[in-house]
């Protein structure tokens, strides 16, 4: 249902979105971080977009390679986190090129990878705040089909991103600011929300 070429469309779409939004992401990171999140993500997804999908047997192999590529090119906090996400996503990708339930399990594997690597919880003002509610929303809507599940995930991700604004950061670089981190949107949650949004747009079934 979601094959290698669908994934390719998603990653290409997201790479373009990241490139377009790189300055804004860096701007968010300027306020509570070190002003590099946009260039980190852009560097990584440009490398991912340069992968030739036809060189991979299936979506799983392709996603794992995308994860490795991110780990190898991004650096910083987002490199291991986004990288781990795609590595685990690929590792748990449903053999049958996934129905909605299978995709939900893969997304959760990705989330679990991020939690294990970064040890953040929901509310710490990180990309987890966008991804965790999105995976829950995906699961809850999975019965309505892939398109609905992806849309629900994107909406929950956006809400999670917005919810980071008032939070005081407890993980990552923004945590050093203490109370001064409140009032700013988390850059990683922003790029994660964009990823979910891109999935809802680029993956099949999104129409329904």
């Amino acid at each position, binding site marked *: 249902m979601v094959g290698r070429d669908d994934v390719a469309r998603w990653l290409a779409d997201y790479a373009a979105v990241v490139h377009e939004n790189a300055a804004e992401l*860096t701007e968010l990171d*300027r306020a*509570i*971080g*070190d*002003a*590099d999140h946009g*260039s*980190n993500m852009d*560097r990584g997804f440009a490398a991912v977009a340069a992968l030739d999908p036809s060189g991979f047997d299936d979506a799983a192999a392709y996603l794992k390679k995308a994860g490795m590529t991110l*780990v*190898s*090119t*991004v*650096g*910083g*906090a*987002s*490199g*291991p*986190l986004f990288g781990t996400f795609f590595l685990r996503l690929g590792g748990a990708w449903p053999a049958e090129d996934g129905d909605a339930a299978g995709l939900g399990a893969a997304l959760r594997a990705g989330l679990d990878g991020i939690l294990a*690597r*970064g040890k953040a919880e929901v509310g710490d003002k990180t990309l987890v705040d966008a991804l965790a509610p999105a995976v829950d929303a995906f699961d809850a809507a999975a019965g309505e089909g892939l398109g609905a599940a992806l849309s629900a995930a994107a909406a929950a991700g956006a809400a999670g991103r917005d919810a980071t604004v008032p939070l*005081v950061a*407890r*993980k*990552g*670089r923004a*945590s*050093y*600011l*203490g109370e*001064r981190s409140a009032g700013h949107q988390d850059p990683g949650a922003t790029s994660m929300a964009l990823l979910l949004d891109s999935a809802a747009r680029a993956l099949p079934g999104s129409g329904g």
Partner: protein
Amino acid sequence: MKKLINDPGQVVVEALEGLALAHPDSVRVDLENRVVVRTDAPRPGKVGVISGGGSGHEPLHSGFVGVGMLDAAVCGEVFTSPVPDQLLAATQAVDGGAGVLHLVKNYTGDVMNFEMAAELAAEMLGTRVEAVVIDDDVAVQDSLYTAGRRGVGATVFVEKIAGALAESGADLDAVAAIARKVVAESRSMGVALTSCTVPAAGKPTFELGEGEMELGIGIHGEPGRERLPLGTAAEVAGRLVEPILADLDFTGRDAVVMVNGMGGTPLIELYIVYREVARLLEGAGVRIARSLVGNYVTSLEMAGCSVSVLRADDELLALWDAPVDTLSLRWGA
């Protein structure tokens, strides 16, 4: 942004090319992996000591590669930790069969990338890696609600002392233990008078008014804990020294003191700060045994400074005094 660069995306690799051209006898540069290595690495039987992190802190770490200090320095993008592949390449390059020590500054990105590299080193190379996380920055007070204290100036102490012990032929456990001891005995605090500009970002990370300073900064141009009116050197020194002394009891002990420039503050000012710091420490009953004044751990062109103090016993002082021959720290060799 006014910088002597060609292309914001090529800053790190072009600087490393310059380094390789300038010092062919002192270091070997692996441009593909952005690793600066001792010319004689790997030395059979010697514990390899590597450190690394984002670039923009020069001379840290590349200036500290050489006899008696680091075997390799791994250079990430500006203010962005290196990736596991780079760290793995460095680990392999310095692995003389006695294991490799990873010196990691405590930032989420650095910690995670070093962790992944250590996992890969164990899997792919069979190399034993010990990691020591450096977290000396007293500006971060609460480690429960933060990513923990940052690694800042004490990195120089750790690299020097662990490097000296490794040079003497000690084994990996001993070298890791001394590094942990230095971390435990070190405290730092920094202040910025201006922000700095990440080349890829193109504009200053934060803005400071004419009469303001950021107290409690890290080393990545990130804002600090508080914004305060800029005081005299004596006042600023007080704001840096007080939290250090409040955090660890240095009374009656020997200390290694570093007044470190963040990049844009001239040496003449750093010595004025040192004067104030020395008075404050001596007034508090600390015996200054050794000192360093200069740009060692910088944040690009940021104006400001940090103070680092190491509570040193005879063992640490002897290792501090041991010969070192690197581009930016050199004595006794």
